[in-house]
């Protein structure tokens, strides 16, 4: 069995609102394994996004621990400041949201180059080449110099994925990446993800409310009312060879 790349220990999240405290996550324990395609499924309001934001460091947990073991480093996300988390996320974790979150004034190639520019991981020349390769991977190279507004939603989402891969992070987290796409386009996105796992050894965590997608993950967890319910390992091609 692969080693765990992300470990959540007793993670809880409470939002304080005027109407009182609201518990969005209670004592979540989970291990995410290197190289797996983990699906987190649940109804709207179940706490999926909240959980994902604990993993990628966009939000701060209320109690518990989140430990990421990537590239021979052990990082405790919950102890870092917001600014440190941003820096770490830029290098180690690609993030994809349902609303693609591209910068509208930058061309596709510039959108993809941005994380490399911010992290200073690559020289300007290299980052440009790398962005172009990622666009090719997404089969969007002919649109490189277009603005996001001039391509379709599915294409924008692939640009967002390319941007998430810019600094070659070992982990990719995606919150409803196919949520606003039609099923054919969504299929294409899944193909990209599967390709990233098999060919590049990435670990992908994806959140969806669509139970119908469960069969596409190598493993999926169900969340309801802020608690992890069950685990299922469907029979998919990703799991061949892993299951007996």
């Amino acid at each position, binding site marked *: 069995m692969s080693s765990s790349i992300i470990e959540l220990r007793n993670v809880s999240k409470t*939002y*304080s*609102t*005027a109407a009182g405290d609201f518990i969005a996550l209670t004592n979540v324990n989970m291990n995410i394994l290197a190289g797996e395609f983990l699906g987190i499924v649940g109804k709207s309001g179940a706490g999926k996004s909240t959980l994902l*934001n604990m993993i990628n460091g*966009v*939000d701060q947990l209320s109690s518990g621990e989140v430990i990421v073991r990537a590239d021979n480093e052990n990082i405790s996300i919950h102890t870092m400041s*917001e*600014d440190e988390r*941003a*820096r770490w*996320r*830029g*290098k180690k974790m690609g*993030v994809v*949201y349902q609303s693609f*979150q*591209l*910068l509208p*004034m*930058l061309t596709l190639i*510039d*959108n993809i*180059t*941005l*994380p490399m*520019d*911010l*992290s200073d991981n690559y020289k*300007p020349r290299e980052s440009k080449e790398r962005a172009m390769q990622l666009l090719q991977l997404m089969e969007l190279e002919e649109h490189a110099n277009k603005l996001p*507004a001039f391509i379709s939603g599915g294409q924008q989402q692939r640009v967002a994925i390319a*941007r*998430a891969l*810019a*600094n070659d992070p070992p982990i990719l987290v995606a919150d409803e990446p196919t949520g606003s796409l039609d099923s054919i386009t969504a299929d294409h996105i899944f193909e990209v993800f599967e390709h990233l796992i098999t060919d590049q050894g990435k670990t992908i965590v994806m959140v969806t409310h669509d139970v119908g997608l469960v069969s596409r993950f190598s493993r999926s967890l169900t969340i309801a009312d802020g608690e992890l319910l069950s685990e299922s390992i469907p029979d998919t091609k990703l799991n061949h060879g892993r299951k007996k």
Partner: protein
Amino acid sequence: MRPRWRKVLHDLIDNKARTLLVVLSIAVGVFSIGVISGAYQIISNDMSVSYAANHPANVELRMANYNTDVLTSIHNAQGIGEAEGRRVNNFRVRAQGSDQWVALDVVALESFSKNQVNLLAPVSGAVEAGKDEILLEKDALKKLNAAVGENLTLELSDGTLKELKLVGIVQDVSTGAGDFLAPPFAYVVMKTLPTLRQPELFNRAYVTVAEGQDDIANIREVGTALKDRLDKNGTAVSRTRFSETHKHPLADTVNAILGILLALGILIVFLSSSLIANTLSALLSQHLRHIGVIKLVGGRNKQVFAMYLTLIMAFGVLALLIAVPLGGQGAYGLALFIANKLRFNLLGYRIVPMALMIQVAVGLLVPLVAGLAPVISGSRITVLRALSGDLAGDENKPQAGQPDRLPWFDYMLVRVTRILAMRGIHIPRPFIISLRNTFRRRGRLMLTLFTLTMGGAIFIAVFNVRVTLHDYIGAIGSYFRADVTVDFDKTYRLSEIQNFGLQVDGVERVEAWQFIGTELLYPDGAVADNLNMLAPPANSKLVNPIIVAGRWIRADDVRKFAVSEAILNFFPDLKPGDPIHLKIKGRTEVWEVVGIFKFVGREGILAYTPFEYSSQVLNLTNRSSSYRFVTTQHDRATQDLMAERLDHFFRGAGFKVRQAESGLASLDTASESLDTLVVFLLIMAILTAIVGAMGLTGTMGMNVLERTREIGIMRAIGADDRAVMRTVIAEGFVIGAMSFGLAIILSIPFTYLLSTIVSLAVFETPIDVVFTYMGYAIWFGLILVLSVVASILPARNAARLTIREVLAYE
């Protein structure tokens, strides 16, 4: 280019209207500061340099006729450098082919080539006049339409006419430099005096001190000693004037005025920075999502901060590119204008390094200071808030963590409309929407109101100041002005002048006034200053004094006088009833002060004593050389006509008339210089108004942008272009109307403040404030126009939005 800098570049150029607004707001401040600080530097340097370059006299003495022997003795007196004797007579002069007489002071010099003091600079034609030739000071050309080569006609005191050939135009920046009211000058050589039926004797001395030329105490000491010696040796000195070589006599006034302008300039910078703060915080809140995205993909606070800081600095640099060249030009233009008005020269166009530095500092610091708070809070925002936050950043929209209730203003509005509706009054719905929008962003509304109100208040105050100053000049005029003043070259009996004068149609009354030239002495006998004592009949209606302390003169006053406030400069504790030492006709006498009245401090100390007593002092019972005429009508045209008529009449009857002047004539000069000042104040007021209008445009633009979705929905449910535009314009209108109400209130303290500062600078005395409806009316019209104009652009943009664009907007 790296993508993050490319984003900054796009932020700069994609929204041109916003960039223009921010850049212009900064530029207005930089421009005004540049103009004023530049002009200040140029003037404070050139004014003294150009004044000093013409070897101005340190002491000017007005004396009885004297000859070259006396001049030699002046030259040899203790501490004297140069000394030059001149003869100055006032003549009526007219140009060839004109019948317009102009009073000129004709200055006779011994020799043009040996001229050492109060030098004449060539302008055109010859620099020396030979016998029966004349030079004109270039200012005289403003009144006299003459060209070099033509003849000028001079009217001599006995009424005969003489022609002198105009051979050149010169400039004399020293003689009469401190006197707003001095007549223009012309120059002849002494040899010409017989032609003008004048003795070849001097009546003025222009003297420099040998050392300490910039030490007013030394100049005063040397000058006073010289005067005493001359008096003792039998040459009466009627007036002395002291001035430093490197200080233009009007330097203090000009500096004070530039100081006022500078204060207004700083205010403009202040206002524009609040406008910039407004725009930048709106920009940052519109950019929240961008910041969230940047942080999501690994951007750190520092990087975000640097990006927005760069954006702000870019605004500053663009503003500098516009404002620095314009400011430099403006500074020189302003300096040139003031120099022309006050008759001094500039040393040529140049860039003032100090002003440039101030501009750069203002241009970079103002946006930095105004934008720092929004940029810091913007760059510190968490990804979660940035991405989840409502893009419009609507303050009153209930957000997570806020109780879900109606904002207070909306609540009020709903209540009020409901109550009104119950009584059958229906407020149009779009208007309610406008009102709600206006109050939605309270912080922004406050800043916009603040800028507009300040602009309006200053605008209104400037008009009040103008009326106040004119009113004051009018009050000053009432001290010693009749409808017509006729001065004769010799004294005549009052009864004689009355007999003749009352024959002239339109003359109602005649008064004889006398004049005693005296000197104010310190108790130890040292001369403090000249004191000009006028002697009208005690019951004269031609003086209407503003008494500050004590009383006005009475017919039975003996050795008593009323004196202007300027005396307090020398005797700060002076009270009515106090004794004062005066030097009158060479004798020291002790007089009693009966009252103190307001007057222009700059014009020296003025005093009044009754004619009844002055006739004893001067030994002229019922005789005088100066007569005041009251005419049946008091308008300017009648006064001019009557002056002409009296002049003719008395000359025709064989009287030796020196000049007949209408009452308002010399006040015009004073009003004119004040109007120049008012024009500058008005320019500053207009600049503040522009800043206010830009603030309003910006606010409207931001409001419209943030309401894009709402406007789309309005359109989707059937609102047409006009309805959308009307909503936006109504909003601008409400803001404009509110600011007008506030400006009315604020203009009152501003009027007092500005009037006091200006009158202290110009008249050296605080004055009574007068209000006029003019400024209010003009500003009301202007604010209506401004608020509509400021809303039109955003309104048109709003109307142009299609539903598709609105839905695409995010």
